[in-house]
């Protein structure tokens, strides 16, 4: 990042007053991060994989602690050939997507209610903040007590995890809407519903989409927690079963699937973000 770097910048060379004013304006200071590097987002991750491969190949990484990439690829081949991965993947996807859809809906409604009314905030904000501070794993015993050990409990756990980021970011963006728009809407005598549709939702959209980015990765991550309780299927179950038998390569294969799923979901939301927020002119362009 270039903060103060001009062609002819020489510290203590001359007093500032003698600088040619025209030259100064032509070499304007650039404060933004500059143009995007092609595939810039991937460089760090690829570097990590290269380090892993080299470390394993050179024997610097103990395979009992971290399996080599080729062992993991072998495990992938076996899991796919036997149809295990597809099977676990399908059921996990169903759980994650169901939880995500319900959680996003609830989180958005809660954020709008808490954002637009003081009573709503008084009632809703506290519990959501509490949920935010409590790890999902700690809630499992209670959720079992209330909802049993079936699918219901698993979906509800994911829903609870998803609500938090959606709520926090949507609520935050909503509260950040400029008062001028609210006054304008009042002047135009907009109904409450029209105000929500035309001012609140578009205004909160950037926050909602940021929340959604957290939520999509979180709903996948939650699987590893919910599928520890009475599951016989799903990626989390696959990882836990492998853990029981110390099959490190399958554990890593599962983690790779999580990473790919998380990144892909995140990329999808960012695509939507770019389309939906094309009116914005920000640093990211």
């Amino acid at each position, binding site marked *: 990042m270039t903060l103060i770097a001009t062609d002819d910048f020489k510290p203590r060379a001359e007093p500032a007053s003698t600088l040619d004013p025209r030259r100064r304006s032509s070499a304007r200071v650039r404060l933004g991060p500059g143009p995007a590097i092609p595939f810039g987002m991937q460089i760090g991750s690829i570097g990590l994989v290269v380090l892993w491969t080299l470390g394993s190949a050179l024997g610097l990484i103990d395979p009992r602690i971290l399996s080599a990439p080729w062992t993991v690829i072998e495990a992938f081949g076996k899991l796919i050939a036997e149809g295990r991965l597809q099977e676990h993947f399908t059921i996990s996807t169903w759980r994650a997507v169901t939880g995500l859809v319900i959680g996003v809906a609830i989180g958005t409604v809660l954020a709008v209610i808490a954002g637009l009314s003081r009573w709503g905030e008084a009632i809703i904000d506290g519990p959501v903040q509490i949920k935010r501070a409590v790890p999902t794993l700690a809630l499992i015993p209670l959720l*079992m007590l209330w909802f049993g*050990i079936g699918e219901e409990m698993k979906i509800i756990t994911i829903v609870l995890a998803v609500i938090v980021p959606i709520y926090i970011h949507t609520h935050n963006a909503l509260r950040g809407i400029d008062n001028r728009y609210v006054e304008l809407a009042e002047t135009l005598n907009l109904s409450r519903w029209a105000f929500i549709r035309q001012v609140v939702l578009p205004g909160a959209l950037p926050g909602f989409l940021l929340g959604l980015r957290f939520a999509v990765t979180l709903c996948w991550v939650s699987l590893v927690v919910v599928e520890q309780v009475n599951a016989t299927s799903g990626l989390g179950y696959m990882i836990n*079963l492998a853990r029981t*038998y110390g099959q490190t390569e399958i554990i890593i294969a599962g983690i790779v699937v999580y990473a790919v799923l998380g990144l892909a979901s995140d990329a999808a939301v960012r695509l939507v973000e770019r389309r939906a927020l094309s009116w914005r002119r920000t640093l990211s362009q």
Partner: protein
Amino acid sequence: MPRITYPLLSLALGLAVASPMAHAAEPLLDEVPPGTVLRIGDPVTQKALEISGLIDELSFEVEWANISGGPQGSEAFRAKALDVSTVAEIPSIHATWTDLPVRNIAYREREDPIAHPVYRFGVTPALGDQIDGLEDFKGRRVAYSPGQAQGALVLRALEAAGLTRDDVTLVELPSTGDVYPVALAAGQVDIAPLGGVNIARYLSQYGDDGARTIDHGLRDDPSHLWAPQEVLDDPAKAAALAEYVRLWARATEWINDHPEEYIQGYYVKDQNLSYEDGKAAVEQTGRQVIPSNWDEVIERHTHTIALLAEATGNEPFDAEDLFDRRFEKLAAEALSEGSSATKKQELIQ
């Protein structure tokens, strides 16, 4: 204090004293009433029943749960999410002390427990050449899980070696998943009981670094079905449990008689292990047998309760309270004549 309080107080006290005695004493129904649903957490038997086809003989509806062992089982019992599960010796004792009334309704053991132990003590790689037997535990850090079978085994091993708990450092650590082999490999504990495939895997992974396992020479194989008291108090559920206990016995017999199908169907297909790992696990188990009399196991339980009570500071109680004798004969009687799962010594007696 008003006069009325005394009768009320004595009544309350009387009830409090009487309530533990109020276990199900009613005889079991011969048939399972229609509409009965049993929620069973016994994944291994479930697989054996599925592979063998015995599952078709169940006359009532079952909701299978992938839950077994003490910590998970008692958690599900407390949540009223499960009716019966599978467990070793300790969790039912621990549950009683933590106000979860449960009782064992079936018991099986390994035919030759000394040659086929469930657990071996793993030794951390750095001390492989220094620890040869139980008496070498003195001064070492031993992984200890108070609510699990592994915990009692540690106490019994110390007792067998003539050591007390003060002679070692007990490191409280639950034995779930791969916690114990990982703790040993990382040198966080010196000694930990390992079970199942962890024994072979620990040796193959860390044997070159000095890791080893040692035998304890004790019986460590009790395997029970256990159920919460309130489930046993429900006549319909109790009848369904009786039917399940009989089928559980026949599944045990089937596993004894069909090792190949069991390795393929359970270890390879369901648990994603290699054939060799599955075969090793089956050989490690050996044959499992079911006695028609619980006197011996209750006697052993009495000793374990005393041992645990001393270690945990809890009140000892009568081991008889942990067993529902209505179920005592069911399993053994469900076996065919000359069955591989019948406990042989009893025939001689």
